[in-house]
C-alpha cells in the first residue's frame, strides 16, 4: 500500500475552482459549477487500509467461529455467514460517500485520467478533440458559429474525461453544466416546502443563456491576456413529449449558433444498449439537430480491450493488488468497451481475494460450457462474451421488436462453413440447421424483457410472413411449436379452461421460461427455408383485439340470455351461439337486433401499430 503515489490529488481542482468562481461571481444565483473532490491526504490512506484489514480479520474470525459451531449444519451456516459478511463488507467498501469512509474513493474517481497519456481513448480521437479545442481557443473572437463540438459514443468511453484531460493539459478552465438535484414534481408537492420548483429544462435554459451572455461579455473584461475557457455540457436534460423536446432543441440551436467560447456537448449513445424506455429522448434525433445547427461531431468508439487492460493493469499495480491476468482479461472483454464499468468491476473484485477466485471459477466453467460454441462462432469478442453471462459483465438489453426481428428473420450462417459435425451424434439431413448468427435465443429473450405471452403472440402473428410460400411443412412445424408453447403458458396440465390465470407462480415461472424458449426456438427451427429477407412490418397481435371483442360479445349474449325467453330452463352458452342465435334471426326477425350477430361483420384490422406492447 505504501507504493501508492501521491498523484491522487486532483490536479485540475484548482483550475476548476477558478472556473467556478468565474461564473459564480457573475451570476450570484448560479449553481456551483463542479464540486472538486477534496484532495485526499495521502497520510490518511494508511489508517483506512489498516481498518480494512482489521475488518477482514474479524470477519475471518467470525467465519471460523461459525465453522467450529457444534451444530450439525455448522459448515453450512458458516458458509452463509461468510457470504453475508462478504456482502456487507462489499457494501461498506463501495459506499465511500459516507463520512466514515471519507478517505476512501471509488477507483473511477481516484484513477481519473489527468494527462493525455493516461487516457484510454484512441490517440487519434484525442488528437482530434485537442486540435479542435486549441484551434478554437486561439481563434479570434467575434466569429459566429462553429464554436461547438459534439462528442458521441457509448456510456463510459471517456468523452468527458478526454475533454477534462485536454483542458488540464492546455491549461483551460472548465465551465460545466452540473445537473441540479433532481426534484420530482410529486416529491415537490409532497414536501410543499419553500423550495421553488424549477424544471430541469428551465434550469438548463438559464445556464445556456448565461454561457451566451458570458461569452459576449468576456473578451472586453480580460483584454489581451485572456483566459482559456471551455464550456462542457455533459448532461442534457431528459425531455419527454414533443413540446419540451422542441424547446430543448431550440435552446441548443441558439446556443450553438451564438456561443463565443468553445462548447463541448457530450451525448451518450443509447442505440447500442437500447433503453426499452420509450420516454428516453432520442439521442440520434438530438444529434442530427445539433449537427444541423453547425456543431462539429466526433464519434468515440468503445475503448479497445487492450487499452482497457493496460489501464486495469496500471491500477492493479498502483493498488498493489494481486489480480491475475485472467481476471483482468475477463473484465476487459466483458465490459463492452465501457472503461468506467471495467474499473468499477475491478475494484469490486479486488476488495476480497476470495471473490476473485470464485469469479474466475465461474467464468472458467462458463468458458467450458461454450461447447455449444457452434452457435456463437464468428462473432466479435464483445458480443461473444455477452452471450455467456460473465460474472463481471454488463447486461445488455434489447427492445422487444429487435428480439422478435432476430427470431423472425432467422439469420443463419451460409452453407459454406458448415462444420458442426463436432456434435457427438449425427442428425438427419432434414433436421439439420446451420448455426445461428445470433446469441442463444434464451439470452435474447432475457435481454428483451418481454412477457412470454407477448412474445408468443407476436411470433404467432408475424411468423407466417417470414415463411417461404412453398413451405407449408415449415408453417406447420412453426405452428405446432407455438401450440406447444401456448399449452405451457396456460400452466400445468391440471389447469384447464379458457381464461386461465396462472396462479401457481412457482411452477409457473419455470414453465413460462420453457414456453418462451419453445416458442422462440420453434420459430427458428421451423422456418427452415426462410423467405428472402425483405421489409416486413411487425404487426401487433390481432388475438388481443379478438379476445377483447370476444369477451364483450360473450357478456352481451349472457346478459341477453334471460331477457327474451320465458323458458322454464336456462340455456347453455354453446347452445345459444351454435343454434339459437342463428335461428332466431330467421324465426323472429323483429326482435333481432342487427348490431353484432352477423358472422361476416368485419373485424376492423388496425395493423402495424407498433406501440401497443403494454396493453397486453
Amino acid at each position, binding site marked *: 500500500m505504501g507504493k501508492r503515489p501521491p498523484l491522487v490529488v486532483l490536479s485540475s481542482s484548482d483550475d476548476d475552482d477558478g472556473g467556478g468562481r468565474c461564473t459564480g461571481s457573475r451570476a450570484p444565483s448560479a449553481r456551483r459549477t463542479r464540486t472538486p473532490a477534496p484532495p485526499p491526504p495521502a497520510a490518511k490512506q494508511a489508517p483506512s487500509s489498516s481498518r480494512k484489514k482489521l475488518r477482514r480479520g474479524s470477519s475471518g474470525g467470525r467465519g471460523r467461529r461459525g465453522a467450529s459451531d457444534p451444530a450439525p449444519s455448522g459448515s453450512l451456516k458458516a458458509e452463509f455467514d461468510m457470504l453475508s459478511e462478504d456482502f456487507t463488507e462489499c457494501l461498506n467498501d463501495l459506499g465511500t460517500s459516507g463520512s466514515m469512509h471519507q478517505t476512501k474513493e471509488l477507483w473511477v474517481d481516484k484513477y481519473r485520467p489527468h494527462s493525455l497519456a493516461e487516457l484510454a481513448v484512441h490517440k487519434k480521437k484525442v488528437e482530434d478533440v485537442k486540435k479542435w479545442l486549441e484551434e478554437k481557443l486561439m481563434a479570434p473572437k467575434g466569429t459566429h458559429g462553429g464554436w461547438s463540438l459534439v462528442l458521441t459514443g457509448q456510456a463510459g468511453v471517456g468523452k468527458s474525461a478526454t475533454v477534462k484531460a485536454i483542458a488540464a493539459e492546455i491549461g483551460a478552465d472548465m465551465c460545466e453544466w452540473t445537473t441540479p438535484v433532481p426534484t420530482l414534481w410529486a416529491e415537490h408537492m409532497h414536501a410543499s416546502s419553500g423550495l421553488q420548483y424549477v424544471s430541469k429544462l428551465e434550469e438548463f435554459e438559464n445556464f445556456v443563456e448565461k454561457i451566451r451572455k458570458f461569452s459576449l461579455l468576456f473578451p472586453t473584461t480580460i483584454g489581451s491576456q485572456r483566459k482559456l475557457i471551455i464550456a462542457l455540457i455533459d448532461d442534457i436534460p431528459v425531455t419527454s413529449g414533443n413540446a419540451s423536446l422542441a424547446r430543448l432543441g431550440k435552446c441548443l440551436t441558439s446556443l450553438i449558433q451564438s456561443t463565443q467560447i468553445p462548447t463541448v456537448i457530450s451525448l451518450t449513445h443509447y442505440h447500442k444498449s437500447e433503453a426499452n424506455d420509450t420516454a428516453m429522448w432520442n439521442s440520434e434525433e438530438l444529434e442530427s439537430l445539433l449537427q444541423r445547427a453547425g456543431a462539429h461531431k466526433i464519434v468515440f468508439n468503445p475503448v479497445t480491450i487492450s487499452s482497457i487492460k493496460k489501464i486495469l493493469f496500471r491500477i492493479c499495480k498502483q493498488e498493489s493488488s494481486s489480480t491475475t491476468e485472467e481476471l483482468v482479461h475477463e473484465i476487459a472483454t466483458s465490459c463492452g468497451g465501457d472503461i468506467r464499468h471495467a474499473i468499477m468491476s475491478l475494484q469490486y473484485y479486488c476488495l476480497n481475494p476470495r471473490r476473485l477466485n470464485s469469479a474466475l471459477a465461474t467464468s472458467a466453467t462458463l468458458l467450458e460450457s461454450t461447447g455449444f460454441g457452434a452457435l456463437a462462432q464468428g462473432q466479435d469478442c464483445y458480443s461473444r462474451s455477452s452471450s455467456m453471462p460473465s460474472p463481471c459483465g454488463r447486461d445488455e438489453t434489447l427492445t422487444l421488436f429487435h428480439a422478435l426481428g432476430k427470431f423472425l428473420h432467422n439469420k443463419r450462417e451460409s452453407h459454406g462453413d458448415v462444420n458442426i459435425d463436432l456434435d457427438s451424434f449425427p442428425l438427419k439431413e432434414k433436421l439439420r440447421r446451420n448455426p445461428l448468427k445470433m446469441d442463444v435465443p434464451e439470452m435474447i429473450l432475457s435481454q428483451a424483457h418481454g412477457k412470454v405471452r407477448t412474445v408468443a403472440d407476436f411470433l404467432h402473428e408475424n411468423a407466417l410472413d417470414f415463411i417461404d410460400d412453398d413451405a407449408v411443412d415449415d408453417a406447420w412445424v412453426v405452428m405446432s411449436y407455438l401450440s406447444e408453447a401456448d399449452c405451457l403458458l396456460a400452466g400445468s396440465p391440471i389447469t384447464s379452461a379458457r381464461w386461465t390465470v396462472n396462479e401457481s407462480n412457482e411452477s409457473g415461472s419455470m414453465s413460462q421460461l420453457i414456453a418462451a424458449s419453445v416458442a422462440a426456438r420453434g420459430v427458428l427451427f421451423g422456418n427452415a427455408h426462410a423467405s428472402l429477407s425483405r421489409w416486413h412490418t411487425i404487426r401487433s397481435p390481432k388475438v388481443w383485439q379478438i379476445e377483447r371483442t*370476444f369477451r364483450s360479445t360473450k357478456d352481451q349474449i349472457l346478459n341477453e340470455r334471460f331477457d327474451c325467453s320465458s323458458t322454464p330452463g336456462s340455456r347453455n352458452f354453446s347452445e345459444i351461439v351454435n343454434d339459437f342465435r342463428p335461428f332466431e334471426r330467421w324465426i323472429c326477425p323483429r326482435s333481432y337486433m342487427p348490431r353484432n350477430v352477423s358472422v361476416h361483420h368485419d*373485424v376492423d384490422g388496425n395493423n402495424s401499430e407498433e406501440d401497443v406492447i403494454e396493453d397486453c
Partner: protein
Amino acid sequence: MLWVDKHRPKALDKVTVHEQVAQNLKKLVAEQDCPHLLFYGPPGSGKKTLIMALIKQMFGAGAEKVKMENKTWKIDTGTRTFDLELVMLSSSHHVEMNPSDAGFQDRYVVQEVIKEMAKSRPIDAKGKRAFKVLILNEVDKLSREAQHSLRRTMEKYSASCRLILCCNSSSKVTEAVRSRCLNVRVNAPTEDQIVQVLEFIGKKENLQLPFGFAARIAAQSNRNLRRAILFFETCKVQQYPFTSNQVPPPLDWEKYVSEIATDILSEQSPKRLYSVRQKFYELLVNCIPPESILKKLLSELMKKLDSDLKHEICHWAAHYEHKMRLGSKAIFHLEAFVAKFMSIYKEFLVATFG
C-alpha cells in the same frame, strides 16, 4: 315462444324420444331415493327436457315457478375477497345455474353456492324430501379445480342437497365426480324419432307437411332434435305452405366454416394459412366455440378427402382438440391443425398428381 320450448314435453310421461330413460327416472323418484345424477349426451338430445320433467315429477308444479335472479356471491379466498355475479334460476325446490360462466373462478362458485344451499335447507312440513336440487349445466366446461371442489362438497352436503349435472361429454368430467353420480346417457335421437317429433309438432300447429319434408329436415339436423325443430320453424317462417323441395338455409357459421374448408383445399401455402386465420378470427369474435369450429371443419374436410388420409387427419384433429383444451388461445391450435392438414394434403397431391 320458440317451438323448441313450446312443444317441450313437461312431464316424464309425455317424453317420447327417450321413453325408457324417462320410465326409469320415474321409478327412481317413486322410490324416494334419488342419488346424484349425471346426464350426458350430444347437444340437442333432450337432456334438459328430461331434467325439467324429472324436477316436476319430484316436486310437482311448484318447481315450475322459477324466478331468475342475478345473485352476487361474496367470495373470501383467505387472501382476498371479491364479488362474483352469476345468474341463476331458482324455485323453492331447486336452483339451476351455469357455473362455467364464471370462467376461471368457477371453483369458488361451486363451493359457495352449495354451502349456501346447504345452510338454507328447506324444512318440509311433512318432514320429507328435505333436500334441494341443484342443477349444474355444462359441467364438462368446469375447470379441474372446480370439479375437485365439487366432489368434496358433494360428499359433505349430500344429506341436504342433490346434484343434477348435465354435460355433453362425460369424459371431461373427472372420474371422482362420475363415480358419485348415477350416470344417465341420453342418446341423440335417430332420424326416425326426429321425424316423429316433427310430425307431432306439425299436427299440433295444424300444418300440412309434404311427403319427405320432415325426413329432409331430420337429415340436415345431424340428429340434433333442437336444431331440427328450429329448422322446422324457420321453414315455416320462410314459406308456408311448404313446397315439396324446400330446404332450410344452412347455419351461417357452418356455411362460413365450409368456405374455410374450400379455401384450405384449394391452396396450401403460408399465405393461405394467414387468410384462414383471419376467417377463424371472425368466427371466434362471434363466440362460436373453437371446439365446434374444429369439429365442423373436420367433417367438411372429410367429405372431400381421399380415404387414405382420413385416419391421419382425424388423428391430428384429435391431437389439436386436446391441445386446445390444455392451452388458452384456441387460434394457435386451430391454425396448427390447418397447417398440418395443408402439409399432409399437399404431400398427398404431389405424390398423386406429381
